[in-house]
């Protein structure tokens, strides 16, 4: 058991030391964190709902919604 914790500690140390000794990396990590925040916390949450996932409860309802959309809503001028 202790050898497992040793391994985990070594892996954590590997990453922590790596991050600490970075030079260009610091601004990169900042950039990545800001980017991920914008993508997931702002864009995904407020602007990109999963339409079918959130509007319907079951796959059968989703299938029906798509069927109706493809039969009726997108009818062209015919």
């Amino acid at each position: 058991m202790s050898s497992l914790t040793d391994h985990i500690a070594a892996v954590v140390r590997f990453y922590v030391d790596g991050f600490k000794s970075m030079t260009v990396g610091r601004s990169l990590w900042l950039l990545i964190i800001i980017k991920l925040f914008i993508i997931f916390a702002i864009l995904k949450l407020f602007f990109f709902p999963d339409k079918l996932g959130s509007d319907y409860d079951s796959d059968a309802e989703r299938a029906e919604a798509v069927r109706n959309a493809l039969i009726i809503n997108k009818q062209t001028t015919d």
Partner: protein
Amino acid sequence: MNDLLGVVDWSRAQFALTAMYHWLFVPLTIGLSVIVAIMESIYVRTGDPKWKGITKFWMTLFGINFACGVATGIILEFEFGTNWSNYSWFVGDIFGAPLAIEGIVAFFMEATFVAVMFFGWNKVSRRFHLTATWLTAIGVSLSALWILVANAWMQNPVGMIFDPEQMRNVMDNFTEVAFNSVAMNKFFHAVFSGWVLAAVFVVGVSSWLLWRRRNVDTARKSLKIASWFGLVGMVMTMWTGDGSAVEVARVQPMKLAAMEGLYDGNVGQSLVAVGFVNPDKKPGDDLEAIKGEISIPYGLSILANHDPDTFVPGINDIIEGRTITAGGDTVYGDSYADRIAMGKAAREALSRYAAAKSAGDTAAMEQAKADVMANFRYFGYGYLDKPEEAVPPVALTFYSFRVMVMAGGYLMLLFIVLLFVCYRRTAVLEKPWLHWLGIISIPVVWICSQAGWIVAEVGRQPWVIQDLMPTRAAISDVTTGSVQLTFWIFAVLFTLLLAAEISIMLRYISRASKKNIEQPE
């Protein structure tokens, strides 16, 4: 209807913006990871610490690009779910589990091996480190596999069966989906074009070092490796590009006709080397299609089928379903008018299926399902009113194809000249014209690569899935305003990110170039 077109156009513009932006980073990640692995292999084989320095220099540039590009692709998936929900549902398995598994595997592979690459220099053995670098390179290419397979399926929907009950395409032959020749050509063409792009990037940065007379040795060594790598990449890109053209001729003849601005095809069809698309030309009229044409005899027949006597149909032929057999007979297959009739029959049958389902009439459901399936291969034509709507934007496809191929030809020459100079005329390596040639080739290769995607994606319009679903049917019930808003958010966000990437890269190159790259601290 107008609002529908507005939503479709804005959603397409948004998707194009996101995809093109994503594709600024991806090919560089694909190619540079292999170049770095090659450099590190030289270091491990020779034990020469100078190569360690060179590897670290390019690896840092790889890291900057990786960091800026990572997760930009996820936005495309958001767009599928929000703007293109009909499409996302309809494609079923293709965009489901395999893409998610690939994402997770790629994430863990990259998080592990990229970390060893960057943090492990003095902590793991040389061989272990090298293995991690190669596994990163392989992982990066593999993580592009399924999305390219999915894209290929949209161009050539095989290996799936449509189920009107689930309203999805259900995979019935994995091998056919994953390993059909359209998918394979697409995957390798995209990956090798990434090699070419990264090679040109290394050539360009090395040329800048030579121009500034900084780290000249590093620049020369890098230039040599990049030129070999680029040449191999280019030969493979051309080979797979040729394979792609044959596949396009087979499964998307309308795209090939648009790539060539060809309206009336011939046996022994020539290929337009130089020419301008007549913007007034419409299918079925008598106007000249290409102005100022200089053509290569038999070129298109050879490109399309590796046979100078092949008949290549033009837009008018395809609309009328006309082809000329190897024996010289003119035969007629399904015209676009027939296809539209079949598409409308399929939609009408789907409507009957829905009605029978709500009435609980299983016999009528079975009959309706059989009618849907009998006409399903042209389902998407049911949304068109006239055959001309199935013609893609000819000019954009035509010019993009020429940009890709001509830039490819130029870059091939560039690599050959550079290799000649590196081995036979090293004095030329000091000439500023050569440095500038290297530097200006950087934007050329990016334009070339983007042009490739324009050919593939604009050339297949109006289809989002070839013959089965036009873009206008794929769209969700969203408002134009909301798509416009997110379009502009993306435009600003991407511009800022790109500016950040370029400035971090330039600052790093400038700072590193002032020290001895071959003697890292």
